[in-house]
């Protein structure tokens, strides 16, 4: 084989044109992923991206990699299946805040406790983009939309403390307006062995444009934040004033595929086959 040329971010584009609105925050995430993949030089055929339904869920088709645009809210179980059936793959999971925290809200804790080695990037625009602007679980209180004509009365969820509380092994937050930091976070998430959760504040220019807001309230986590300290991570995550960016928490722990491989090795018996198993049930 000829010597492999270094793959550029552009090489990771599938050629399918993103259908996002001009200015959508998801473009920055897209570019961040392309950059991270090219930095890590992961071969196309070793990448697999699972997603649910939403503007953000359209992501996989745009990347030159394997992908699966599944049903709404089940991107994590889908990706868990991929990774556990084929641990050699680099698996990304992508989707929106509705996909992740509303219909799919039950799955995050379980991916976290298994420590499935996938990188979950949630493009949080605090709105349902694809269905044209209904409030999402992260929408601010009082948001007026067609589905909330008198303003939402439900408190927004703050996903980071919730994910931290699952003891997930990598928890971070990025912002589409800080593309370089974002690309670096995504890269670190991919490099992290185990479950990586990255919330990206990714504004929806069409139904809830929050660029200005987040530009004013975001800040990189202070230098002295110790990302192995859960209490510190929790404190910054719970902060109601500043939306901190960066890696909140990180710990090393065996990933689910490693743990399962461990079990396989433990129970491995030379020459064991279905015939042996069946004969164990002879009368």
């Amino acid at each position, binding site marked *: 084989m000829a010597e492999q040329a270094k793959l550029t971010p552009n090489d990771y584009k599938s050629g399918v044109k993103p259908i996002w609105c001009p200015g959508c925050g998801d473009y920055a995430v897209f570019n961040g992923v392309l950059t991270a993949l090219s930095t890590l030089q992961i071969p196309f055929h070793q990448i697999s991206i699972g997603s649910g*339904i939403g503007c953000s869920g359209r992501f996989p088709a745009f990347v030159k990699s394997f992908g699966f645009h599944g049903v709404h809210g089940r991107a994590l179980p889908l990706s868990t299946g*991929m990774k556990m059936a084929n641990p050699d793959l680099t698996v990304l999971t992508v989707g929106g805040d509705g996909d992740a925290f509303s219909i799919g809200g039950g799955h995050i804790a379980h991916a976290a406790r298994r420590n499935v080695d996938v990188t979950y990037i949630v493009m949080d625009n605090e709105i349902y983009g694809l269905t044209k602007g209904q409030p999402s679980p992260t929408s601010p209180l009082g948001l007026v939309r067609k589905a909330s004509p008198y303003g939402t009365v439900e408190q927004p969820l703050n996903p980071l403390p919730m994910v931290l509380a699952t003891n997930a092994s990598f928890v971070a937050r990025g912002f589409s307006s800080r593309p370089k930091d974002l690309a670096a976070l995504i890269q670190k998430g991919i490099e992290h062995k185990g479950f990586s959760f990255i919330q990206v504040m990714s504004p929806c220019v069409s139904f809830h444009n929050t660029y200005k807001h987040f530009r004013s309230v975001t800040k990189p986590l202070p230098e002295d934040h110790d990302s192995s300290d859960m209490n510190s991570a929790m404190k910054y995550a719970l902060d109601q004033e500043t939306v901190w960016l960066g890696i909140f928490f990180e710990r090393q722990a065996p990933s689910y595929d490693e743990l399962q491989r461990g079990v396989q090795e433990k129970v491995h018996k030379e020459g064991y086959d279905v015939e042996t198993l069946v004969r164990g049930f002879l009368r």
Partner: protein
Amino acid sequence: MGANDLVIRIGGESGDGYVSTGDILGRIAASSGYDVYTFRTFPAEILGGHVMFQLRIDVEKVTSRGDMLDVLVATNQEGYEKHHKDLHETGLIVYDSNSAEIPAENTREKLGIPVVDIARKLKYPRGKNAVLLGAVVQLIGLEVEEAETMIMRRWGRKSAAIGEQNIAAMRAGMAYAAENWPTERQFRLEKPHDTESERLVIDGNQAISMGALAAGCRFYAGYPITPASSVMEFMAKELPKFGGVMIQAEDEIAAINMVVGGSFAGKRSMTATSGPGVALMSETLGMASMAEIPLVLVDVQRVGPSTGMPTKTDQGDLNLAIYGMAGEGPKVVLAADNVEDCFYVMSAAFNAAERFQLPVLVLSDQDLSNRIQTVPLFDMSRMQQIPRVLPEIKEGEKYLRYTVTENGISPMSIPGMPGGNYTAESLEHKPMGAPSHEPDNRITQMNKRFRKMETVAKEMADWNLFKYHGERKPNIAILGWGTSEGAVTEAVSRCQAKGISVGAFYTNLLLPLPVDVIAEFVKDAKVVFVPELNYTGQYANWLRSQMGLESVGYYRYDGLPFTAGEIEAEIEKLAAS
């Protein structure tokens, strides 16, 4: 007096170990060369409550739970009250005379055994079960050596001493019965016909699990639900030995999505659940059909709707299996007819899933899942694997995942294949996978996907999925499906012996329905008879919708499996009319 066939029922308090006593009795009979078939109920209470365990022993093949009882073992008063009506006029009641009293109006033979006293005398009060076991072993004439071996294997597993104590208790029970029951009135079984051939003693869920493993399943995700949980538990134990993975998911929706992911990534993947789980999975099943993902879903049916009666049996999910999808897409529905079938049907299921790239549902049921049967040692040569059609990836040419082909099957690449990258798509899509809502493309892709159903019908016709019992051109043509096969087969034999022209056809393949094969079978029939364990006659309805076939139905929906006797009676009614 020697019998070919005995039906024995133990009724008593759950948790007292009578179920495992029955189980051991069955294993003694099986290892002696008899054919056995068990049936049991579950109490309403979490622990405790009344339970019954029924065992049928035959000198040759046994296919159903039996009609009336030959021997009733009543371990307490309830055990008598609840079951004595099911005893043959000529049957025998064996009872713990320390715990139950047989009322004066009883007309059947009875043998009271002071089980508690005997056990106490042995200074082993927990030996009650073994005492009763011994009495039955003696009364039906099983071999004491086989009995001792089985007791050691089961009760002596943890401590040989306990095994020995139980053997002593068993012998005491034998002795008591021998003394107190005249030999000429014993319920002695004839010698078994075949003590040589290798036979397994297993239940349906074990057969399904082994079938899945033999069919190459290496990824399983599931969620506990009665009566499917034991498949998951079996896979948890065995899959890692085969380098596979079993995940207990957080719910059924997660489970089926993991299965989709696992299959997409290249492993033969499955889940098993029951009705409520299938309902939850139906959104994703539609997605698997659209995105053309192979997968196998086993539905161990229980009584619905909703939570229903989880420990009772039913055939109420056929409609759901066939029709439970938003919109329309290809899928395959199979049913297992008996415990042995549970093994082989998994091969058909995985082969269909992989070959045709679609979801395959396999219908089993609570009764099949739980009943322990003697079955011939599985024939591994019947488990050939038909692989997924892989693409030939050509340099510089874009791989088209959903290529439009004549048989509808588009070569499917696997993550890890250089050049094979594509996005599996739940939206309608173009051949390369990108979403499309163009009317023309829609028609092309729908036609392509549905052409697979024609290919399925053509290819699976040769997969050995049809069974005939009795006459091939009968006056009374029975069309059954699934778990009723045993009772129906037996009823057919009995009726044939009475000179009735009757035959039954069972197909594992329910969707697509083998319409031509069925039409041929019923061609000359005077009446088509469809017995089912449900209220609305789902199979009859399916037959009518697919081929305009009219039939006479017989429906049972109280949670219990058919007896051969009731089917026999129905056939006789039809023959008389």
